[in-house]
C-alpha cells in the first residue's frame, strides 16, 4: 500500500513536530539547569570555604561589609521610596494623558536602562566632586536610589491603575477629596503590590557594585564602640566611606594578594549575596501570592 501524497505530508509534519518539541525541551531546559547548577555551585562553594572568622567584624570577616550593604540599601530606600511612590501616584492619578506623560515615561525608561557605571559617574560628579566630600555611604545611597527609582515608580503606577474603578468611584461618591481618596483608599489597597516592588528594588540594591565604585568607596574603617554619629568611624554615620559586599568581591579580585584569604572571602560573600537575593525574591513571591488569595483574583 502506498501512502497518498497528502498522508505523506501529514506524516512528515507530525515527525517534524515531535522532533521540534524535543529540541525545544532540550534547549529550553539547558539554560535553566545551567543556572540552577550555577546557584548551587555559588552557595556550595561559600559553605565549603566557610571558616568562623568570616562572620567577624574584622579584615578577615565580612561583618562590616554586610552591615554597610544593609545600611546603604536602607538609606537608598529612605530616599527612593517616597519619591518613587509619589511619582507613581502622579502618573496614575494627577497627570493627564498627553505629550507630557509620554515624555515622563520616556524619561523613566531611559533612567531604567542607564548603565549603572554611568549613574555611578554622575553620582561621583555631583555628590563627591561638586560637594568636595570624600567617598561616603550617602553618595552611594543616592546613586542606588537613582537606579531603583524607575522600578518603584512603575510598580506604584501599575498597582494604582490596576485597582477596580469602584474603589475610586465609591470613595469620591462619599464626598472624599482626591487626596483623601488616594491616601485612605487607593494606597492602602495597593500597598502589598508596592511593597513587592520595593523588596525587588532592595534586592537589586544589594548586588549593585559599579554605581558604588566611585561613590561609596572601597574602604571601611569603623569602630564599633564609637556611637558619636558625627565621627567618621561611627558605624551609623552616613557620611563615612563604606564598602559593600559586592564591591568587596571586586576588591578581593584586584587586591587579592594583600589578603591571604581573598578567595574564601569572595566565595563566602558571593554565597551570602545570592542567598539574600533568593530570600528577597521569595518574600516578594509570598506577598504576591497572599494578595491574589485575599482578593480572590479581583486585583
Amino acid at each position, binding site marked *: 500500500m502506498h501512502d497518498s501524497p497528502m498522508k505523506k505530508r501529514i506524516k512528515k509534519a507530525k515527525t517534524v513536530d515531535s522532533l521540534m518539541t524535543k529540541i*525545544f525541551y532540550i534547549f529550553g531546559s539547558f539554560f535553566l539547569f545551567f543556572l540552577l547548577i550555577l546557584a548551587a555551585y555559588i552557595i556550595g562553594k561559600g559553605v565549603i570555604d566557610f571558616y568562623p572568622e568570616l562572620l567577624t567584624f574584622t579584615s578577615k570577616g565580612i561583618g562590616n561589609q554586610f552591615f554597610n550593604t544593609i545600611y546603604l540599601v536602607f538609606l537608598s530606600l529612605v530616599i527612593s521610596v517616597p519619591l518613587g511612590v*509619589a511619582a507613581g501616584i502622579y502618573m496614575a492619578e494627577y497627570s493627564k494623558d498627553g505629550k507630557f506623560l509620554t515624555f515622563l515615561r520616556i*524619561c523613566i525608561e531611559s533612567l531604567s536602562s542607564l548603565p549603572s*557605571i554611568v549613574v555611578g559617574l554622575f553620582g561621583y560628579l555631583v555628590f563627591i566632586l561638586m560637594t568636595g566630600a570624600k567617598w561616603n555611604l550617602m553618595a552611594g545611597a543616592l546613586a542606588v536610589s537613582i537606579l531603583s527609582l524607575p522600578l518603584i515608580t512603575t510598580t506604584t503606577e501599575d498597582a494604582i491603575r490596576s485597582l477596580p474603578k469602584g474603589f475610586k468611584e465609591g470613595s469620591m461618591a462619599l464626598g472624599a477629596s482626591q487626596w483623601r481618596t488616594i491616601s485612605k483608599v487607593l494606597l492602602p489597597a495597593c500597598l502589598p503590590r508596592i511593597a513587592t516592588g520595593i523588596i525587588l528594588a532592595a534586592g*537589586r540594591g544589594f548586588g549593585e557594585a559599579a554605581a558604588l565604585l566611585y561613590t561609596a568607596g572601597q574602604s571601611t574603617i569603623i569602630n564599633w564602640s564609637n556611637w558619636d554619629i558625627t565621627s567618621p568611624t561611627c558605624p551609623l554615620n552616613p557620611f563615612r566611606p563604606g564598602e559593600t559586599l*559586592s564591591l568587596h568581591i571586586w576588591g578581593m*579580585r584586584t587586591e587579592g594578594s594583600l589578603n591571604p584569604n581573598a578567595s574564601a572571602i569572595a566565595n563566602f560573600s558571593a554565597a551570602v549575596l545570592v542567598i539574600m*537575593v533568593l530570600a528577597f525574591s521569595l518574600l516578594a513571591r509570598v506577598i504576591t501570592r497572599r494578595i491574589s488569595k485575599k482578593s480572590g483574583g479581583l486585583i
Partner: protein
Amino acid sequence: MSTHKTGTLPSAKQSAFQKFKNEYFWRYLIITCGLFIILLTLGIGFFLVVKGSGTFTEFHHSVWEFLFSSDWSPMDSTTESGGGVGAAIYIFGSISTCTLALLFVAPFSITSAILMTEIAPNSGTKIFQPAIEIFVGIPSVVYGWIGLTVLVPFIKHLFHPKMGGYSVLAASIVLAVMIFPTITTVAADAIRSVSSDYRKAAYGMGSTRWQVIYKVIIPAATPGILTGVILGLARAFGEALAVAMVIGKTRAFPANILSPTNNLTAAIASDMGNSATGGEQNMALWTMALLLFIISIFFIFLIHIISGKEKKKHA
C-alpha cells in the same frame, strides 16, 4: 469661627488653610516628585554632555578620532595635552563581546520563552518563571567572580591560549548568562500576549504545534521578542565589573575570540579613579561615559520605533 452653622456642606466648613493642608499641599508635592524624575533624567544627560564634550571643545580632538582611531595615549595631567584619545579598541571590545553574547544566548532565550508559554505552560509558570526571576537578581559581580574563578581557568585548560584564559570568549559567555533572564522574560511576555484567536484559527486548520509556533506565533511576536533582545543588549553594553574581571584589560584589538581586549565600561571602571580631574585622560573617559549614555538612549529609541510600527499595523 462661624463654620459650625447648620446646613453647610462639610467641604465648606474647611478654612482655606485646612483645604491647602489637606488637598493642595499634597497635590503640589506629588506633582513636584513627578517633575523631579524628568529633571533628574535631563540633569544626568546635561552633566554627561557637559563633561563628555570636553575632549572635543577643550582638547580639540575630533569626534572621528575618538570613534575610529586606536591610538589611546591621553595625557594624565591638567596642564599637558596632545595625546591620542582614540577609543576604537574599547568600542570594538564592547561591540564584539555584546554581539557574541547575543549570538550565544538568543537561541536559548527564544526556545525557553516558547517552551514556557506554548509547550509546557504549567511548569512554565510554576518552575521557569520563578527561577528566571531569581536569576535577574543575582548580582553581576557574582557572575564576574564565577567567570574569573571557573570560566577563565577552564578556557585556559581547554584551549591553551597564549595570554591565559582572559578573553573575548569568557566575557561574552558571562554576558550571555547575565542577559538570558532579561531576553527570556520579555520574549515570553510577547508570546503570551499573542491573541489566542490566532492559535485557535491555526489549530483549527489542522496545523501541528510546531507549525503554529513557526508560522503564526513567532511572526506575530517578533516585535516583542526584538524588544527583549534590545533590552538584553542594552544591559550587556552597560555591564562593567563582571566584564572587567574576565576580559583581560589589554589595550589591543583581539586577534581572535580567545585573545584578551578591553571595553568601554571596564576602562572607565579601572581608570577613572586614577586620572587627574580635568585632565585629558579624565575627559576622554567622561566622553566614553557619554557614548554609553547615547547608546542606551539609542536602544530606547529603537524599542519605541519597533512598538510604534506595531501599533500602526493594528490601528
